[in-house]
């Protein structure tokens, strides 16, 4: 690994002023577990590493019915998994985190680090996309909000300017009668997903018709993929297994998954069908219970 200069700012302002000073030559490190692998491989070789893990004000989980859920960028996966507020109001996030990686990785890794890494197999992104989450980004003296859905630009590329950092994840309270679920194909629990699906379904309390649905996939393209065509097949309908199967078929046709040691593109396309249907069914059951 190449030598670099290391900084451990204790405040957001300090981190931002370092970033604005060094810009492209600097990289932010949160947990750093994924980044160190890239640095060892020489894929990332920053001159300056700004380790923000010690900025404790960015480690929080807040919930209110009005404002929804706010998660500080440096909250660990394990704290999200174990949060009572999240288990009660956003169970899908806790379930996703439990399967995200092994316990050691979840203990040290942060939600913000995961999102800014921008890997197409990252599990938080699709779940946050179907939950309609927004991200708060900060630069020196400025802030902006981007939709999670638009944040990932390409493999390992996200919508962050060189002088910006992710501060907070904002998740609105879902509409009543909404069910959300996530699952992924993994060899062993805690492995990286070969493909994954997150689905959120809102049904009408009167007749059970699908009012809104959001589907997002991992391992299906170079970014977390929103399956909009598949969603269209479900909106306004009484969802059943046959319709979910069709939606899976449409999602699979719209996917452009990679072929690698974990699975061929053909295999991933088949598994997308399976997981859209499986996770869609779980989301629907949850929507009916609410």
């Amino acid at each position, binding site marked *: 690994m190449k030598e670099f*200069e*290391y900084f451990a700012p204790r405040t957001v302002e300090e981190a931002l002023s370092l970033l604005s000073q060094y810009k492209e030559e600097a990289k932010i490190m949160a947990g750093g577990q994924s980044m160190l692998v890239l640095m060892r491989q020489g894929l990332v070789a920053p001159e300056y590493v700004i380790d923000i893990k010690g900025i404790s004000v960015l480690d929080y989980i807040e919930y209110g019915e009005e404002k929804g859920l706010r998660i500080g960028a440096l909250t660990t996966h394990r704290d999200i998994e174990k949060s009572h507020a999240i288990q009660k109001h956003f169970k899908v996030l806790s379930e996703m985190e439990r399967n995200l990686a092994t*316990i050691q990785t979840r203990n040290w890794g942060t939600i913000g680090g995961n999102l800014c890494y921008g890997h197409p197999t990252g599990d938080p992104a699709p779940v946050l996309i179907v939950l309609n989450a927004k991200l708060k980004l900060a630069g020196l003296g400025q802030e902006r909000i981007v939709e999670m859905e638009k944040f990932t630009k390409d493999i390992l590329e996200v919508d962050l300017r060189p002088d910006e950092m992710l501060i907070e994840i904002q998740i609105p309270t879902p509409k009543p009668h909404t069910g959300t679920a996530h699952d992924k194909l993994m060899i062993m629990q805690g492995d990286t997903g070969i493909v994954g699906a997150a689905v959120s379904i809102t049904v009408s309390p009167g007749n059970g018709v699908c009012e809104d649905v959001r589907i997002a996939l991992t391992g299906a393209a170079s970014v977390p993929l929103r399956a909009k065509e598949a969603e269209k097949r479900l909106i306004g309908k009484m969802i059943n297994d046959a319709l979910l199967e069709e939606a899976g078929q449409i999602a699979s046709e719209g996917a452009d998954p990679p072929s690698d040691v974990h699975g061929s593109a053909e295999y991933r396309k088949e598994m997308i069908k399976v997981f859209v249907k499986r996770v869609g069914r779980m989301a629907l059951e949850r929507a009916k219970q609410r």
Partner: protein
Amino acid sequence: MKGEPKELKLIVNGKPYELKVKSKALLSDVLRKDLKLTGTKRGCLESTCGVCTVILDGKAVRSCSILALQANGHEVTTIEGLAKGGKLHPVQEAFVNHGAIECGFCIPGRVMVAKALLDENPNPTREEVRLAMQGVLCADVGYVKQIEAVEIAAEKMRGGE
């Protein structure tokens, strides 16, 4: 200056250390090379195998995937810190007595994961033990005896026999 060693303060197994380390030094490197605590193993170096697991502020983490400087000011427990006064920790004892050790390479990591689990959850279900132990890969002895050993240790630590 780039490449110039930086100050690192650590408490390892209850003992304070003040060192100078390179920015790129991994926590596992500092434990093994600077502190000569070679019980922590170096395996895949990419967050897969888990043999480098140590306990940082009470939580199991992978010391090959953390810069040493990221642990500045924190408390680390390694396998060397478990036995007290020549007496093995209950997890170590259970691994030995239950025949859960073969080549031994993954065992320090495995024992640290088990200790962190039992400190947090003294009465885990088999499923919880199984899930925690998945964080360390073993190539030879197999997993069943290790899972049983953790359950034996849990019972002992709760005061039962």
